[in-house]
């Protein structure tokens, strides 16, 4: 049995925020539980109790507002993977969500939890970093928005305050016609925690790439954008030789990021494979196009 002295199951966000604001000891918001429950089993989490957010309906929506898409923080990976809106407007995010864990994990785990847990290898986080996503936080007193990049501050660390809850993740819709993909390298197909992952978005105007964003995961403490890789693509014509330039730059970028860490030798080599696979497949295929 896990040591959980206090357990609250509010049905509204207002009540949940009130519980966090008035807590004398630290309460942790609980979303799907796929990270928190095993961490508690191993006594790795030191909290006085949990505020279960699963019954708060307003946190479960996926919607489009103007030129932005908003994901409720309690949306599961399975809901994101199968959402028609996400599949057509942001196929790379649907793909990233579909590669998380196993069917069981995707049915329970949530995007808000993936962010709050701040794993270096979080699959949807790499895709959301490439999408330049913002995170909306609420407390009883205020609402604030922070970029996902700024919110993550180390492996397992975020700038979320104890009285705050992630309510939404938002990002601008991509230009129709742009392409995006997500690739993951794991030890086996299902369930593997990413050894490395990459999200890529670009668009082509008059034969040249005019916009590119690259997210890299499990290389640093948190998934991050790679300006060096983006600059390799911008202004260039899609071609086989551009794929090879991108592959070489990916190797240099991972070497810069990892320095002399023991995993560097493996990851510098491995990133060449995922960089080549993702870019060449996006260049040659007519799929993964944003509608």
């Amino acid at each position, binding site marked *: 049995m896990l040591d959980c*002295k206090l*357990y609250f199951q509010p049905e509204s966000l207002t009540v949940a925020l009130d519980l966090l604001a008035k807590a004398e000891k630290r309460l942790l918001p609980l979303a799907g539980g796929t990270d928190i429950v095993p961490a508690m089993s191993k006594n790795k989490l030191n909290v006085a109790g949990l505020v279960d957010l*699963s019954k708060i309906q307003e946190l479960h929506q996926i919607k489009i507002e103007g030129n932005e898409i908003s994901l409720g923080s309690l949306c599961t990976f399975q809901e994101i993977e199968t959402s028609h809106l996400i599949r057509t407007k942001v196929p790379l995010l649907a793909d990233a969500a579909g590669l998380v864990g196993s069917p069981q*994990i995707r049915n*329970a785990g949530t995007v808000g939890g993936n962010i709050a847990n701040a794993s270096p290898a979080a699959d949807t986080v790499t895709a959301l970093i490439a999408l330049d996503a913002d995170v909306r936080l609420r407390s009883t007193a205020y609402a604030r928005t922070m970029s996902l990049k700024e919110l993550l501050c180390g492996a397992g660390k975020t700038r979320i305050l104890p009285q705050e809850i992630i309510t939404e993740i938002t990002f601008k819709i991509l230009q129709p016609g742009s392409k995006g993909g997500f690739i993951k390298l794991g030890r086996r197909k299902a369930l593997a925690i990413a050894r490395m992952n990459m999200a890529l978005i670009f668009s082509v105007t008059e034969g040249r790439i005019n916009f590119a964003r690259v997210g890299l995961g499990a290389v640093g403490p948190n998934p991050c954008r790679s300006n060096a890789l983006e600059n390799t693509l911008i202004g260039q014509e899609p071609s086989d030789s551009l794929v090879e330039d991108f592959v070489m730059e990916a190797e240099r970028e991972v070497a810069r990021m990892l320095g002399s860490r023991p995993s560097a030798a493996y990851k510098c080599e491995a990133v060449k494979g995922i960089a080549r696979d993702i870019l060449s497949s996006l260049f040659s295929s007519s799929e993964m196009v944003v509608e």
Partner: protein
Amino acid sequence: MAEFHLEMKVNGKPIVLDVDPGLRLLDVLRDILHLTGTKEGCGEGECGACSVILNGKLVDSCLVLAPQANGQEVITIEGIAQNGELDSLQKAFLEAGAVQCGYCTPGMILAAKVLLDHNSTPSRLEISKSISGNICRCTGYTKIIQAVEIAASRIATKEGADHA
């Protein structure tokens, strides 16, 4: 310790319990309700032996706290036989020889059940994907996939007959 008032449906039966909120759904099913068909393997969501169907979706019951199942409907392996007759998946697993040590079988059958409930003509790839969160260390999966194919074809035949 404040107990949590838990109301849920398990295999169609309403259950009302006051439980320690630190219990996992798996603990309540096995230790309180004595539904020991649900197995604990790794305890961290890697093996799928503890899979149950929660509101129509397959989850690892070792990763769900019992209070999270409040107001929900749980189906375990004990709940899929109807009126004493085994489910077509259970029959197919026996016929195909898809059960060796049997520890993964309840989870495998429930994973396949969720698939067949939505798709009675799955491809081999769809079957593999549906059981990708369930580890079997005996069979090599071949017989398990065959069993799901047998069950699917029976269901399709039955549906065809019902429509005729």
